[in-house]
């Protein structure tokens, strides 16, 4: 009996030691990775400064017109940094971006919309400038802004579903032809616009936050959107922004073909 009890205690000790050792190794691996990321971060910061000072030739001029609609996703906790948001928008305007969509999950940026518009001379709301969401190619003087939050994503699809349900019920519901006319992707897009959550598909989505994650940007609008992680908003810099837009202009897309 004593032998069994002792061997149980020994097993328990060795399991604890094994767990402690595994935890130590796990932390060691992650510390090593953080150390590996450090020189990469330094290199990125140096490159950003070189781009900002115009010392890297290829970033000096590129076809920014290829980027027709840009979306910025910001973590809601950082969305209160309005000075950073305004600076970012000023940079985008200087680069020549005509249409920007600002998104944060909780709608903090929506609430600060008037304040942001006031700080940016001449910038107008996208829906004030465009009756439909067709982007015109004509020269546009001022940048347009759109403010989007989670309520324009899944919640908007639910609202659109209820609108389509009304159409479906009034159509008689059993007619297959009617179903084929009501339930199409273009009908869905139009209905989302009707409920106040339409909008163009962004070509590029820049994520300012701790992780490369779109944080619930309206799913219907990003099927072929390039999603790039920029790091936290507090450490944003002009060079990284230029590099991200330049890389976008070099991308080739097949759209499944």
């Amino acid at each position, binding site marked *: 009996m004593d032998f069994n009890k002792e061997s149980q205690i020994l097993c328990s000790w060795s399991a604890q030691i094994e767990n402690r050792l*595994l*935890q130590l*190794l*796990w932390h060691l*691996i*992650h510390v090593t*990775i953080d150390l590996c990321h450090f020189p990469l971060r330094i290199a990125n910061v140096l490159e950003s400064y070189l781009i900002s000072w115009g010392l890297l030739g290829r970033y000096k001029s590129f076809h920014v017109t290829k980027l027709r609609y840009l979306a910025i996703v910001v973590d809601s906790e950082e969305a209160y940094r309005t000075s950073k948001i305004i600076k970012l928008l000023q940079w985008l305007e200087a680069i020549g971006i005509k249409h920007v969509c600002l998104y944060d*999950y909780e709608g903090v940026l929506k609430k600060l919309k008037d304040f942001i518009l006031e700080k940016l001379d001449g910038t107008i709301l996208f829906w004030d400038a465009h009756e439909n969401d067709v982007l015109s190619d004509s020269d546009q003087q001022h940048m347009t802004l759109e403010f989007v939050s989670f309520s324009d*994503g*899944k*919640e908007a*699809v*639910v609202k*659109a*579903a*209820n609108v*389509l*349900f*009304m159409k*479906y*019920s009034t159509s008689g*519901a059993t007619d297959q032809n009617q*179903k084929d006319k009501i*339930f*199409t*992707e273009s009908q*869905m897009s139009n209905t989302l616009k009707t409920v106040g959550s339409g909008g163009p598909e962004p070509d590029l989505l820049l994520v300012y936050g*701790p*992780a*490369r*994650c*779109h*944080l*619930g940007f309206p*799913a*219907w609008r*990003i*099927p*072929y*959107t*390039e*999603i*790039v*992680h920029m790091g936290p908003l507090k450490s944003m810099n002009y060079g990284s922004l230029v590099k991200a837009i330049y890389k976008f202009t070099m*991308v080739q*897309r097949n*759209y*499944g*073909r």
Partner: protein
Amino acid sequence: MGRINQIYGCLVSLLQKCIFRILSVGPIPNHIAFIMDGNRRYSKRLNSMEGDGHKAGFSALKAMLKYCYEFGVRYVTVYAFSIDNFKRNPEQVQSLMDLMLEKIEGVLKDESVFNRYGIRIIFSGNLGLLSEPVRSTAERAMLATAKNTTAIFSVCVAYTSTNEILHAVQKSCEEKWDEIAASDSSDQDEMHHRIKLTDIEKHMYMAAAPDPDIIIRTSGETRLSNFLLWQSANCYLYSPSALWPEIGFRQFLWGILNFQRIHFYLDKKRKQL
């Protein structure tokens, strides 16, 4: 030489198991999804036929599945064929369909492997767009593994997110109409706001799996190409530069390590929903 390769293989496998044991101290992703991009570029790079790239891609898929299930990932999803891919050259489409049919038939012949590991296969997408042989074989594979509960392997075929959302909305409308007809209700207000988020989500093609924790798209491309857009709100998006047939343990490990570094943040965001 064969003996040395065998010993080398065993050592590599042991090392991988040790690494998994250490990594399992941290959070293990419940669901990983893959966009298998780069098969055609791989064929071009090797100056071989396009079909060779897809066959090499299938070997890479088997390796990834093995790593996922050994590490304890319960749900694995792959983007095998998009509705957009039907726009390709008809010969390319047929070649892909033939490969899919061959592999699904292989699963049916060897169903004991899936049943032994308790893996259930689900084909998610607008299966009505597939040719009858592929569709019926896929349905037989789903039936053959339906009772397995240890892990789920979802194959998105004839799939796009926008089609998935539209399909879910349509099914929700049809279901609500049937409910109203059965209840004989004439309340207009009740009719106006009948469909809820839960109604739509239960009709998604991917309803059997939770939202993904990581989406891995190979070839360095940064878009989702209409894949799991609805489900990826708080999902870590990882784009290694390797082409799909080149993906290996190194990329898998890097994806897991990065996921573990940001897991706390993404989990916090998920709980806000």
